[in-house]
């Protein structure tokens, strides 16, 4: 039998990758909340399948959940199309209703049997090692592992074979339609792949955390790169890393593995929001600051150039006057003057500022 810890880590990594693959497109197509709605709304489908199949049945579960997903997506679109409410209200009306129906059924008919409401929310990846796949008497290892491996392959094929079509219809649906690709068909294919993945991941990580695995790695990657292929690869890596780290943390403090995985995802995302070289807040702030100094420097040079060899030149070149006229604080004015002195654009003469040859050249180029 496979070591339970290893089984959990492997399943976690496979779920993360399976979810991250469609995730990139969900984020780019602004369908994150649709994915959230689907992952909640499949619950009544799973419960109905459990009911009809008289027990947990993999195929019935998939079919029931897929049916629930189709009903949800069409209901949301139909409600939004009536124009009686906004698209966000339509989403916010339909999926809580489906989810409430599911949890009602679970607590009324299945409480403490096999499904319970806590598992619905955050799954029980902890138990993947105990449910093994038996084929003709052979024990092939944890069933969840197999399911997620198959889903990974399906999603890889989906993204790999339809990469060009998905890319085009994501970035320019009009052109895609004009070239003869069907954006509507691709939309529904993506929805289908999303719901099938959500069903597969549901028992392991629950309804709410599936969304985290789909959206957060993709959004993290989106802040790191502008290339779609790189984005997909990075989001798989981000998800897999979180699965491994999350398992470690959960073992360490004895808490839910899926909760820990998502917490790690959140921390990774926060770090990237702050420190991404291209789109991070720190990089952005530094870029802004550099531009601010550059602009102030140029204003100073142009100001000095303007008043050069005129009456009151000396007064205009005093530090105190600068801060008043350019509306700079005294500290900022000093900083800019020092920068200009460092770069040899100006020199101090008898307590006021005079342009050097370099400074004059730059200033005349700026106002030319």
């Amino acid at each position: 039998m496979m070591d339970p810890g290893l089984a959990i880590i492997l399943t976690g990594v496979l779920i993360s990758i399976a979810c991250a693959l469609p995730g990139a497109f969900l984020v780019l197509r602004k369908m994150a909340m649709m994915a959230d709605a689907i992952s909640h709304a499949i619950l009544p489908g799973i419960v109905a399948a459990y009911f009809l199949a008289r027990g947990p049945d993999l195929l019935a579960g998939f079919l029931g959940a897929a049916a629930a997903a189709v009903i949800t997506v069409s209901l949301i679109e139909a409600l939004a199309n009536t124009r009686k409410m906004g698209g966000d209200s339509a989403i916010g009306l339909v999926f809580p209703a489906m989810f409430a129906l599911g949890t009602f059924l679970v607590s009324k008919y299945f409480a403490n049997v096999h499904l319970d409401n806590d598992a619905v929310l955050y799954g029980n990846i902890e138990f993947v090692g105990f449910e093994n796949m038996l084929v003709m008497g052979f024990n092939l290892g944890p069933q969840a592992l197999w399911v997620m491996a198959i889903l990974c392959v399906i999603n890889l094929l989906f993204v790999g074979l339809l990469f060009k079509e998905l890319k085009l219809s994501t970035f320019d649906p009009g052109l895609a339609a004009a070239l003869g690709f069907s954006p509507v068909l691709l939309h529904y294919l993506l929805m289908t792949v999303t719901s099938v993945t959500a069903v597969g991941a549901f028992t392991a990580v629950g309804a709410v955390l599936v969304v985290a695995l789909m959206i957060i790695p993709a959004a993290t990657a989106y802040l790191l790169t502008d290339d779609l292929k790189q984005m997909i690869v990075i989001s798989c890596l981000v998800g897999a890393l979180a699965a491994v780290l999350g398992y470690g943390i959960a073992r360490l403090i004895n808490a839910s593995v899926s909760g820990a995985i998502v917490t790690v995802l959140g921390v990774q995302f926060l770090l990237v929001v702050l420190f991404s070289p291209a789109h991070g807040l720190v990089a952005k702030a530094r870029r802004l600051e550099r531009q601010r100094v550059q602009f102030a420097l140029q204003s100073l040079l142009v100001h000095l150039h303007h008043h050069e060899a005129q009456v009151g030149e000396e007064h205009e070149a005093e530090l105190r006057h600068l801060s008043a006229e350019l509306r700079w604080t005294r500290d900022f004015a000093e900083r800019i003057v020092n920068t200009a002195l460092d770069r040899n654009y100006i020199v101090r003469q008898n307590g006021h500022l005079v342009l050097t040859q370099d400074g004059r050249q730059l200033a005349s180029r700026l106002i030319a």
Partner: protein
Amino acid sequence: MSIFTELFTDYTLRNVALGSALLGVVSGVLGCFAVLRRQGLIGDALAHAALPGICIAYLLTGAKTPLVLMLGAAVSGWIGVWALLRLVQHTRIKEDAALGIVLSAFFGFGILLLTFISRRNDANQAGLDKYLFGQAATLTTGDVEAMAVLGMIALVLVAVFFKELKILAFDSEFAASLGFNTHAINLLLTTLIVVAIVIGLRTVGVVLMAAMLIGPAVAARQWTNKLSVMCALAALFGALAGVSGALISISESRLPTGPMVILSMTVIAAFSVFFAPARGLVWEWVQLARHRAQLRRGLAAGK
């Protein structure tokens, strides 16, 4: 004894009915503004984001005092909305992804804390997980009083700033051009929505609370074109759903309250969407069919 006489004599029933009516009224009224601003889903992110706050408040104080847990929920819900708005404003993450990220990341962290708390050998923690799907049967008079105080403050603020909230809901750019401080009004609205959600957490739970903002407002919108009437109707629908859901849930001990409240709300909303006069879909279909028939008759007569 009939349920109506019990409602006034039985301690639990009275608390449950009062508490769920309160949450319905407050979330109904505030939901109107959120829905008209197309920000209904912000409530979803906010409610999920409240979970870690509840757990942290418990870890810090070691007590399950309702007001303390509510405060924790409010603070972390507030941080969630703040993070959401910052993400949309300062990064290239779009609103829907930001919603999904805040909602699921905060909730995941909350689950981590919740399972951490419940797996320690800590007898006192039992019941914290009731905040997931809500449990109206355990409401005490203290809970209801805390909810009533917060709810009254929120409703008074709505009444005082009704004009400002109204103009923000319909045309925030116009409001800004008239000199209204739209940032401040937006802040007020967000804070009031935080209060509405916090009031409902004990009864409906973090997972489904957002639907109590959207459902009553969508239903009320069907019956009127006037904001004040819409608010009153939404309050009525919210209270109706709250009370009926809570009563159904405690009549069968195993049912969590949140899903029952939301299912009652869904029935009201669905009825309104289909059958409300003028805006109801059924009347629209009837009208359409009548026009078609008239046109067909006209064409036949003209032949």
